């Protein structure tokens, strides 16, 4: 790909996006109220609440720490339970969607396989908050609604990614097993699944981390996870409490990310034997001295315990309503999904004009805005990451960048740590909660949403991009440094251009998630699809709500397919395996 053209197009898209979104530069300066609020909120960050800010609550003897712990436990529990369901969906869908499972399928089976893949993409196109709204509207606010809302899109994502990982892992080992008389299932298990296992496990843990963030966000639609308390504390003006919740959430998310990266390293590198034994050592001695990771075992055990506890600790999965009431609600909901002119006149031909009116009045504009919101944010995130990599990449931040000794460099090393640390914090914040907080500062402007998406995704892109730079095999950066060039010269002159396609690939991968998140951010009150959805929900216009949900799903679905197509072409240009389209957190930094 021509870099210059790509960059020019990206800049054009960014500014065109800002234009279409009416993002004025003067909106970047918060109002006086906003500034005061921002100041108060920022100063509260240094003094998170250790007890209730409300005097009445303090006197009641309730424990604030206990409240945080309960909310956090619920957040983790819903995420873990949902992931255990999603894993089942992901494994079944992932295997059925994998080319390597079917071998040489007949035409009908190939159609079926593609259908499974599209189905996985379609299920995941609908954001978990949308699923939550649908389920809550249908059966009321219940733990089951929360868990299903997370499990469906996450299951779809897992299925899609598992298929890709399994196809990528297709090796001659499974061919050997088939050629030596093994049945297809055994050959698939031994040759493909085992080969892909480190990637499958790593990706599942990454999804669990995402699940915790999403579970927290479900609080904004009334599920009592940590997001719910952040929202209510905000409404009460208890900023210090918000920070306590945020710190607790960040700690958990960062802990899970840390576990994930250690598991990835342990599984991809393996452990050597504890000590080198002589050639005549007995099999038992060898067994006792074999390399094994206690960390892996402990993690596996804990995750399993967590999943079982998550299921068992729920006293009532339903909404507490009687069976009849639930059924009644559900029937009313399904009735109201039918477009209202059809309901009123019993004539399906009235649906066309109704739909046309909806789309022309609001729908298409909201769709357009949502698209540009996601695109502008992804581009901003990419730009921030490309700049941040220069300071954040480990191999450049060292005293001897890429093994070339240079004078000084201590400050650079510290800066590198600060940049990487900020990126961790940035990507640990759920976009939705970030957007919620930024909106209070900037007022109802689209900038808040763009920044929220850009901060979270910038943190992810910085990490992925820095890994590309750190793992770059070419020696041209060393040559530049040895000739007296600076780190920036090595980055701009060698590392960035060489890894550029890879960076674009990651950008497209994040772009598709930005579009997906953008469909929901409007729920916070800024014109886009999410706004229409929450409006329809408030007015109980379920028929309209369904239209907007489908419209959002379609946008994300198309975005997914576009992104897949672009990334496939980029990979082919790079000479990389075709199928590996999602590559977050794969290779460790050497």
């Amino acid at each position: 790909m021509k870099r210059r053209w790509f960059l020019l197009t990206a800049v054009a898209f960014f500014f065109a996006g800002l234009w279409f979104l009416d993002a004025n530069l003067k909106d970047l300066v918060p109002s006086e109220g906003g500034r005061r609020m921002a100041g108060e909120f920022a100063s509260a960050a240094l003094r998170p609440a250790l007890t209730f800010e409300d005097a009445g609550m303090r006197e009641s003897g309730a424990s604030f720490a206990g409240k945080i712990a309960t909310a956090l436990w619920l957040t983790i529990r819903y995420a873990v339970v949902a992931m255990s369901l999603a894993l089942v969906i992901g494994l079944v869908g992932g295997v059925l969607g994998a080319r390597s499972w079917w071998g040489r399928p007949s035409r009908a089976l190939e159609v079926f396989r593609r259908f499974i893949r599209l189905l996985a993409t379609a299920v995941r196109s609908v954001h978990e908050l949308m699923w939550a709204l649908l389920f809550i509207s249908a059966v009321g606010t219940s733990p089951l609604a929360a868990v299903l809302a997370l499990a469906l899109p996450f299951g779809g994502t897992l299925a899609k990614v598992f298929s890709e990982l399994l196809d990528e892992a297709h090796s001659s080992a499974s061919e050997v097993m088939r050629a030596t008389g093994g049945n297809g299932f055994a050959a698939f298990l031994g040759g493909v699944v085992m080969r892909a296992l480190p990637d499958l496990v790593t990706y599942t843990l990454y999804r669990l981390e995402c699940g915790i963030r999403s579970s927290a966000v479900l609080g904004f639609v009334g599920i009592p996870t940590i997001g719910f308390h952040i929202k209510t504390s905000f409404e009460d003006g208890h900023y210090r409490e918000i920070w306590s919740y945020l710190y607790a959430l960040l700690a958990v998310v960062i802990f899970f990310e840390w576990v994930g990266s250690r598991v990835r390293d342990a599984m991809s590198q393996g452990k050597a034997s504890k000590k080198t034994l002589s050639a005549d050592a007995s099999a038992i001695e060898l067994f006792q001295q074999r390399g094994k990771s206690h960390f892996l075992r402990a993690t596996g055990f804990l995750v399993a315990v967590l999943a079982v506890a998550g299921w068992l600790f729920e006293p009532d999965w339903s909404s507490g309503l009687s069976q009849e009431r639930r059924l009644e609600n559900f029937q009313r909901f399904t009735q109201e999904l039918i477009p209202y002119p059809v309901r009123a006149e019993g004539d399906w031909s009235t649906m066309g004009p109704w739909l046309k009116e909806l789309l022309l009045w609001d729908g298409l504009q909201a769709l357009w805005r949502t698209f540009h919101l996601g695109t502008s944010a992804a581009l901003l995130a990419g730009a921030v990451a490309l700049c941040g990599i220069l300071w954040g990449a480990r191999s450049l931040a060292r005293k001897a960048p890429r093994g070339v000794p240079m004078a000084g460099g201590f400050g650079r090393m510290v800066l590198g740590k600060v940049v990487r640390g900020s990126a961790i914090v940035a990507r640990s914040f759920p976009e939705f909660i970030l957007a919620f907080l930024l909106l209070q500062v900037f007022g109802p402007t689209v900038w808040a949403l763009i920044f929220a998406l850009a901060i979270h995704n910038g943190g992810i892109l910085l990490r992925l991009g820095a890994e590309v730079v750190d793992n770059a095999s070419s020696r041209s950066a060393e040559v530049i440094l040895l000739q007296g060039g600076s780190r920036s010269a090595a980055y701009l002159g060698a590392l960035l251009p060489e890894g550029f396609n890879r960076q674009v690939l990651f950008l497209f991968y994040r772009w598709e998630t930005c579009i997906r998140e953008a469909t929901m951010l409007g729920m916070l009150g800024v014109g886009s699809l999410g706004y229409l959805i929450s409006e329809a929900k408030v007015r109980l216009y379920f028929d309209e709500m369904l239209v907007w949900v489908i419209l959002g799903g379609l946008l994300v679905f198309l975005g997914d397919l576009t992104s897949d197509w672009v990334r496939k072409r980029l990979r082919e240009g790079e000479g990389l395996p075709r199928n590996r389209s999602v590559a977050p957190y794969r290779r460790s930094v050497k």
Partner: protein
Amino acid sequence: MFELQKVSLDYGGTLALKEMDLSLGAGEQVCLIGPSGAGKTSLLGLLNGRVFPTSGRVSVNGEDLTSLSSKSLRQVRSRIAWVPQDLGLVPNLRVNQNIACGRVAAKGTFGLLRSFLAMGKGERDEIHQLLVRMGIGEKLYERTDHLSGGQQQRVAVARALFQKPRAILADEPVSAIDPERAKDLIELLTTVAREEGLTLVASLHDVSLAQRYFDRVIGLRSGEVVFDGKASDEGLEKLYRLGA
């Protein structure tokens, strides 16, 4: 052991093999040589039924592969080991687990899973014995990708032997490695085949290796046998003209 009668193989218009007649006896050590596209890989594929002929008959120990049910075909295959060019090992499995895969036909899916999760003592000792014989006994529980290239070759040969086969097929086993290791692997393969009385069919690019280690060398070009016999001077002359 292997019998080809008037076998042709047609890959959608390209004729990979032309009416080939060939008989490979039990215990014979045969080397296939010839330029790329000569049909070596196709011929090896026919021998364990990975590829079926367009016309003609391929039989293994008198059983016609094309007429077998898939279950019987699997049974025939379970007696023929295969060592592909990249060895076909799973890099992130331990050595003992990779070798256990050699007996996948007898184990079935659950047996394989059991070997992966909790290998029985008998199986473990048997695998250990094989590794000792290969000179890498201490690598029993090592992760396969922690081994050197030469050690991985030995693991692949051990997996083939663990299968208790009647024949070993090796497809260009040395084309991607340095000459010293290539020599080691061919020496290992021919030695174990002789000791166990196995039929060995290997395809090679290297004429001198073929000449040195194999009694019978078959030269292929454009899907036809150009030359078949002991590696005599007369034969070698024909051999060298092969690529011309």
